[in-house]
């Protein structure tokens, strides 16, 4: 993999010929596809997206108002790349890796244009600790040292495309990201920072099959539809069905070591909520602020559309960089539909032949290229790392047959179908248990067997069966009322209701219920199963369903969710249920 850093000399200047919104045309420009160019006197940043004879077509990452034909355009000769090195964590970037905090300092509260800002601070000094010594053989991707960045240790690596060599000098101490920390015997010098073009996946040694679940603390996800570390998932849903809350819950509680959160064309106030909330939330594992493991990319809906198109690539490249250090990274993209719309907007300005619903014909290819950058991998330096990608999709009118949802579903392995009907009755997370699926169940089977309980997989299938059965019964109930059902099925209806209300419903805003450990999930499901067994036994013994459903102790089960040290309460409910059913049976 060759990065085009080599021809960084400025080539000859071109001239603007036409400006139509974010897409401009230049002539006399010596350019290659995806070169970054500076447009106009204000040197707005843009990227070459089409070459036609002497005409170079450029998408501009900033507002083009007031730019005139005849203004100069120059080519930097570089691809759109991100700066990778210490300083990424806790940062919040726009779509082209400009730190938003630096932009506030440089241009105030509103985003103006023509201001460039490097992705990493080039002044800040970091304490570099070498992990190799003189004479050691190193190659592309080798870890040569580390920096304590936050509570996360940042591994300093050679760029993936560096040729092998042996270390001549390497010394610990305080360095900026640009200063040389390592010199090889052939004289090549390496700073801590590396640049990587965002549209090119970072290379790995090999891709592995995912076998460990990404634990999220969300019962319906971990329990029923798990995603593997290194897996891909899509959350499609109409507006108001809780996409963003689900994404944020994942960003908060998933047991990844690094979280990259891309707010792609979404609401400004929502990004602010993340920004104000994350520094105060604790990582359930380390007890440190969640912000310390997080990189945020915020290109809100009213920021330039071309930068929105780039934001997804910027995010995944940063995620891959941390993966190469051997970390488990989870990446949330909210929302990939806005990304697709950005592609559509640019494509229509290029007057390309549209595909379905005006989206460009290459939509499917771009989506699959993006999701394929996820995975559990053996890194170039021999470590294991993963990038899990969870993409939100916002289908217009909640219609899942539209192109972005359909093309996404063809690629991803997990589908969490959000349902506006559920959210309207405040069933949260409003993930529909009948439409959702996870294709990782088989590969994660062993993990659940070993780490949770040999019973778990059985419990899970049992719960799914009950829910499926309930859906069938509901159709009958809609017609004739629940009293007309056979007695055993009246019990099933009640058991299903408990699975829904006790297990599936989870309150993201309750301090305890917001995160539910796998152990607690198992205990809760077991308690529901216990109720079911007792209830069916009682029914067989001749106890009428009205009496079974009137059992008081089971009504305490929902309260378990809100209790931190739930074990004593749960045991008591178990005993009470036993006693109540015993009494019923002996009376019958």
């Amino acid at each position, binding site marked *: 993999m060759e990065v085009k850093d080599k021809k960084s000399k400025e080539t000859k200047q071109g001239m603007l010929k036409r*400006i139509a919104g974010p897409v401009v045309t230049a002539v006399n420009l010596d350019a290659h596809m995806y070169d970054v160019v500076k447009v106009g006197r204000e040197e707005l940043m843009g990227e070459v997206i089409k070459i036609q004879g002497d005409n170079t077509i450029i998408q501009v990452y900033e507002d083009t108002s007031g730019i005139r034909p005849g203004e100069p355009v120059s080519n930097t000769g570089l691809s759109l790349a991100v700066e990778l090195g210490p300083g990424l964590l806790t940062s919040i970037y726009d779509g082209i890796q400009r730190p938003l905090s630096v932009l506030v300092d440089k241009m105030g509260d*509103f985003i103006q244009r023509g201001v460039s800002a490097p992705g990493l601070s080039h002044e800040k000094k970091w304490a570099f600790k070498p992990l190799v010594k003189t004479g050691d053989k190193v190659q592309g991707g080798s870890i040569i040292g580390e920096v304590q960045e936050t509570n996360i240790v940042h591994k300093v690596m050679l760029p993936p495309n560096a040729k092998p060599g042996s270390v001549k000098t390497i010394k610990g101490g305080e360095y900026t990201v640009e200063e040389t920390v390592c010199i090889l015997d052939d004289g090549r010098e390496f700073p801590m920072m590396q640049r990587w073009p965002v549209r090119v996946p970072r290379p790995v040694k090999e891709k592995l099959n995912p076998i460990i679940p990404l634990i999220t603390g969300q019962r319906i996800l971990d329990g029923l539809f798990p995603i593997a570390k290194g897996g891909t998932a899509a959350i499609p849903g109409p507006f108001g069905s809780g996409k963003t809350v689900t994404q944020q819950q994942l960003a908060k509680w998933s047991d990844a070591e690094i979280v990259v959160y891309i707010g792609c064309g979404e609401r400004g*106030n929502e990004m*602010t909520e993340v920004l104000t909330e994350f520094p105060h939330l604790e990582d359930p594992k380390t007890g440190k602020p969640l912000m310390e493991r997080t990189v945020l990319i915020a290109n809100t809906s*009213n*920021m330039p559309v071309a930068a929105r198109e780039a934001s997804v690539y910027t995010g995944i490249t940063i995620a891959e960089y941390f993966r190469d250090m051997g970390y488990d990274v989870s990446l949330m993209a909210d929302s990939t539909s806005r990304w697709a719309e950005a592609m559509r907007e640019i494509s229509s300005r290029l007057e390309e032949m549209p595909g379905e619903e005006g989206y460009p014909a290459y939509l499917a290819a771009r989506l699959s290229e993006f999701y394929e950058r996820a995975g559990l991998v053996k890194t170039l330096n021999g470590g294991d790392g993963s990038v899990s990608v969870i993409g939100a999709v916002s289908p*217009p009118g909640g219609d899942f047959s539209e192109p972005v949802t359909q093309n996404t579903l063809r690629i991803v392995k997990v589908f969490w179908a959000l349902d506006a009907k559920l959210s309207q009755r405040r069933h949260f997370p409003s993930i529909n248990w009948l439409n959702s699926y996870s294709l990782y169940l088989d590969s994660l089977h062993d993990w659940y067997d070993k780490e949770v309980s040999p019973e778990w997989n059985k419990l899970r299938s049992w719960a799914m069966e009950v829910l499926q059965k309930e859906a069938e019964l509901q159709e009958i109930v809609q*017609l004739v009322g629940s009293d007309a059902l056979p007695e055993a099925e009246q019990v099933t209806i009640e058991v299903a209701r408990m699975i829904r209300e006790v297990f599936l419903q989870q309150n993201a805003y309750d301090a305890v219920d917001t995160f539910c450990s796998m152990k607690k999930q198992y205990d809760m499901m077991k308690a529901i199963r216990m109720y079911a067994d007792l209830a069916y036994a009682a029914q067989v013994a001749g106890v009428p369903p009205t009496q079974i459903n009137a059992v008081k102790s089971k009504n305490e089960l929902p309260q378990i969710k809100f209790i931190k040290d739930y074990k004593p309460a749960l045991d008591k409910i178990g005993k009470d249920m036993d006693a109540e059913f015993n009494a019923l049976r002996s009376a019958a």
Partner: protein
Amino acid sequence: MKEYRTINKIAGPLLFVERTEPIGYGELVNIILFDGSVKRGQVLDTSDELVVVQVFESTAGIGRDSGVRFTGETIKMPVGREMLGRILSGGGKPIDGGPEILPEKRLDITGAAINPYARASPNEFIQTGISTIDGTNTLVRGQKLPIFSGAGLPHNTIALQIARQAKVLGAKEEFAVVFAAMGITKEEANYFMQDFERTGALERAVVFLNLADDPAVERIITPRLALTTAEYLAFDLGMHVLVILTDMTNYCEALRQIGAAREEVPGRRGYPGYMYTDLASIYERAGLIKGRKGSITQFPILTMPGDDITHPIPDLTGYITEGQIVVSRDLHRKGIYPPINVLPSLSRLMNLGIGAKHTREDHKKVSDQLYAAYAEGNDLRGLVAIVGKDALSERDRTFLEFADLFENRFVRQGYSEDRTIFNTLDIGWDLLSTLPVEQLVRIDRDLINKYHPKFRNEQKKE
């Protein structure tokens, strides 16, 4: 300033001007007619051969002999404190017979995006006095909360009631209303104006009127003028500004009209593919900024064509705004005012503005329980229509009755009935007390003991 007479083509609201000097993208354009009158437009596409100008007014009277002057700057809006109390056209010219606005500043009307890092998180509860909003879809300062309505429903009355009653508990601050009408009838506009005058709100308001018979293309700039004014009042003068935009459906129609005239590839139902981005550039101009005193809260109103919430206009709006208040024809037919259907309604920022610190500790859980119970009762209505009330279980009957009670006591209220949030929550508890206590699964025991009428009274007795 050079005047060109090189118009080559006029199509709909677009002029194609040839052989110009380099013209900037987005520049303001003056078109001079033979009788000396001037129309305004904006550059949509510029190259060394051809400049495309979008005219904001009717193109009647423009011909190939008309003069075109490019002003060299983007469209700017003169703003000043004395705009309060004034009535302007949809293009920003005074139409109340008063003098021209003396500008304190001239601001670009497209406005720049607020840096997400500079935003402050909205968390101040606004009490509107309407239970279905305060109790179950709480509004907070800096939010953009649209009203999704349909033709013939009382959305204007609701908007006015909100504008009249909205207040932050315990605060006396400078507030202002910016009202932008796009393509509404004179009658509707009068309805707003009379209410503003009657309540004295007009002194604190800036009104932009683009009426049904005004040029459609002018509607493209009306909300931008209004929001530029709002930003000045909020972030320069430190006022809390409530912006009412009505009717956004007419705005989107104008957008489609221009898209069609430019022969663009259309998206869903003929609306341009960039409609999401375009609407976002309006709706996102709401919020709070760290270290500045004022705020912008937006109330866009839109009528859903055919009451269809999946139509592109409400759909794209819902994806940008922080929730929606849905006005229901069914409730309206039942004679319930305000006919707000809480089930599809939502306030995304609700959780930031409620709870012990802002309203009351039980707010969230009461609201969830009301929703869940009403949804269940509402479902049962369908069942009753088939099997009759007698076939229902005891439990189901209480839920069915709850749904009726909810509509009649919680939803229904007077045009000028200004309920406090505590009043609203207490009504909620009264309704919940008609259900068996063990059915209140959304509320934890402590809160039930403290607020449930049955236990509340017991506690008092002790």
